[in-house]
């Protein structure tokens, strides 16, 4: 989907089109793969926290407070791919 399609979806409140776009992006053009990749990333985000280790919350809070929305949104996508890659279950043809 081009940016024009996405902006039309935003204007129409068509969330499903936007979500489908994200699934296609993280699933390398395959929507069902994208669903699995999103689930995989959430599991990878959960696993390191299960034993309640210390985390650098000051860094997190400072980042959330001081960085702009676009940078934080990019960080969200970056974390998705980073966590999936760290899992070792990498479906993409290329690499980061």
């Amino acid at each position, binding site marked *: *989907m*081009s*940016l*024009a*399609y*996405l902006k039309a979806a935003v204007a129409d409140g068509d969330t499903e089109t936007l979500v489908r*776009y*994200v699934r*296609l*992006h993280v699933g*390398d*053009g395959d929507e069902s793969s994208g669903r699995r990749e999103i689930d995989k990333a959430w599991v990878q985000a959960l696993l390191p926290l299960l034993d309640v280790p210390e985390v650098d919350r000051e860094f997190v809070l400072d980042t959330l407070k001081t960085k702009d929305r676009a940078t934080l949104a*990019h960080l969200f*996508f*970056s974390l*998705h*791919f980073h966590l999936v890659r760290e899992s070792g279950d990498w479906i*993409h*043809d*290329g*690499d*980061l």
Partner: protein
Amino acid sequence: MATSSDGQLRPGLWDTVNERYPGSMISKEDLVPLASLGRPLSEARLAFVSTAGVQPKGTLPFDVVHPVGDYSFRRVPSDSDPADLEIHQLKYPTDGAHRDLNVIFPIERLRELRDEGVIGGLTDNFFSFIGYNMDPGLLERTLAEGIAEAVCAEQAEVALLSPA
């Protein structure tokens, strides 16, 4: 490999692309004629332009996670050692290219063709970007124009364009 009646390789590919990424393909209403070569290839300076996501090690990696794409390009010195280059690209298999970069970015083959006199010369820099760009207008206004200006500044007489 199957071809359509108009000679298009892999017929149906564009339908698939447009189904998955509708509106992402650049379409041109006006005919843009190819520039004719003003001198033999053996006397011409060639620039190589690739979507392979190849870049010198140590430069900012291409933004492969961005959902709308990366509209920047990198200059790759044409005398680079492949060992000094790396690939940042999600959308094509890079295993072969990691064994021999020339399969996707034939920098050494082009130097050989220059040394053999098949090509008159090479520009000081080649150019590389990633092909995942979902805003065709921005791609045309920034990336395409930027590379075109850079190729002209290198006094290229031939541009070899290669999708990854």
